[in-house]
């Protein structure tokens, strides 16, 4: 089902971050060599949740297009996985979500697209770290 309202998109983003945090905590238990970096991802997910929520609550106004800005199909952006190998693909989808959400929320006050863009960038950096981790894992895991 397509998400159209700001409230739906914020809830979806928070859910993504929460699920990701749990996933990385779980992976950290199983891939001890990448434990610290995976736990840092989980911590970052929880910070993202707080930041997304705070930004939304600080700038939401009924006077601009909160209910009419988004056309987000959540299925396009989610990938259920419990293995490290799939996390790069999962991150790519999440980066696309935040990039699309940033583009579509241009009509909202600037803080909302800004936080989406910032998280997309952080997830891009995370993707590179995951690729490195997987590369190392070919020999070590």
């Amino acid at each position: 089902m397509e998400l159209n309202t700001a409230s739906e998109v914020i809830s979806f983003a928070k859910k993504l971050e929460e699920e990701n945090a749990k996933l990385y905590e779980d992976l950290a238990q199983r891939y001890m060599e990448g434990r610290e970096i995976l736990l840092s991802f989980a911590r970052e997910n929880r910070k993202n949740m707080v930041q997304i929520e705070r930004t939304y609550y600080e700038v939401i106004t009924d006077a601009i297009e909160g209910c009419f800005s988004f056309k987000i199909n959540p299925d396009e952006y989610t990938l259920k996985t419990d293995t490290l190998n799939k996390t790069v693909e999962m991150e790519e989808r999440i980066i696309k979500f935040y990039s699309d959400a940033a583009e579509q929320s241009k009509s909202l006050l600037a803080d909302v697209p800004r936080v989406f863009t910032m998280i997309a960038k952080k997830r891009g950096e995370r993707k590179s770290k995951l690729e490195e981790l997987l590369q190392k894992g070919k020999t070590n895991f």
Partner: protein
Amino acid sequence: MALLEEPIKEILKLRNYINGEWVESESEQILDVVNPATQKTLAKVTMSTKDEVNAAVEAAREAFPEWRQTTPLARARYLFRLKELMEDNFEQLSRVQTMEHGKTIDESRGETRRGIEMVEVATGIPSLMMGYNLEDIATGIDEYVIYQPIGVFCHIAPFNFPFMVPLWFSPFALATGNTFIVKPSPRDPISQVKLAELMDEAGIPPGVYNIVHGGVDVSTNLLEHPDIKGVTFVGSTPVGKVIYRKCGETGKRVIAQCGAKNFMIVMPDCDQERTVAALMTSFFGNTGQRCLSGANLVIVSEDDAFYKKFLDAFVGAASKIKVGYGLDESIQMGPMQTVDSKKSVIGYIECGIREGAKLILDGRKPNVVGDYPDTAFLNPTVFEGVTPGMTICEEEIFGPVASVLRAKDLDEAIEICNANSYGNGDAIFTSSGKAAREFQYRVESGNVGINIGIVAPMAFFPFSGMKDSFFGVLHGQGRDAIRFFTESKVVIQRWF
């Protein structure tokens, strides 16, 4: 999408808040506060007696001298505490608004945020309330002006923004050292009760802030009370005119923000996609129940292709709006606030048909998301071929109905706007600075939007209005509010 949890679990019995106490009314006239989406009763509200109104005024009058002597900095600190409590209770306050009014959760959160912004601005009172001076108006003589609070003010609140609208006034009244009485709309008074609970928790002294529930009789008693120094009102134009006249007769200050019929002018060079999104909020946000809603859409073009393309996009977007209970996050438009409001809107739709407008999107048989009675719901409605003089072009419908007109150029569009008796919030959508400037310069509207569909001024600007949309001199919010709630005292001094 799952429904957000409802904060009201059982039927509330609402009481007056007078002199820092929650007081049961002795009146036997009790109304139900109904959730317009579910039609379930949320609360019982009593229509207060004249004695109870008098008690509130007396409490406010007695509290005034001490509150006035509380320093502006100390008054600001009460407001800082209130702001923190509002932030702590943000989500609950928002969900209560959705339950009692029907608006979507995004809209309610937006309303809560706007309300908090009023408190934030009023905390700047030590600077905002400063007077000014000039030394040596003659040799050795100085002159200065002091802004002083006046006494007891009241607010008669509308139903459409039950939380925010009283906050256009109360924080400024309190910050300037006045005492205040709010009469919430009996249709959705719960969020004002929640706000008063926070005022109480913030430690606002007894009598400084009071709530008296009721309808017309309570309003009349407040208007006629000799100890009320000023009245703020937001509501319909006919009632606003009565209040303005009564305040004139009794020498009270008044801000009467009234009805509207706002024009949205669409130029051929607009950004179509973003304009349509903005217009959805403007025409159908808050289910069209706001004085800044778009009502008449004027498409400016002699080019049939542009006209048709834009209208198709507008109608297409309107037809896809999800209507239902606002605590479902996917909902884009809630119900009308009451069944009677819905009937009134349907009456206007029928009138539009009779007068020859072409109904191109009929919202009378609502398609509601979820299992709710369709009692108060409507879907968006769009009329084409509307012309000045038709009832649906001239009168405030206060519902999700868009009347589409056509103008050959900007001059004609501005003429159409200015011929209307209201002047609240007109807007133009264009990428031309010249057209925007011309519109801003000539349009007779107190609030003007340029690529903004809801021209709602921020807390630090006045909420303006012209013609039949406003009666008074100074407006709510911002520096106007500071001036409204204070008297200028001029001192000329010479020392021998």
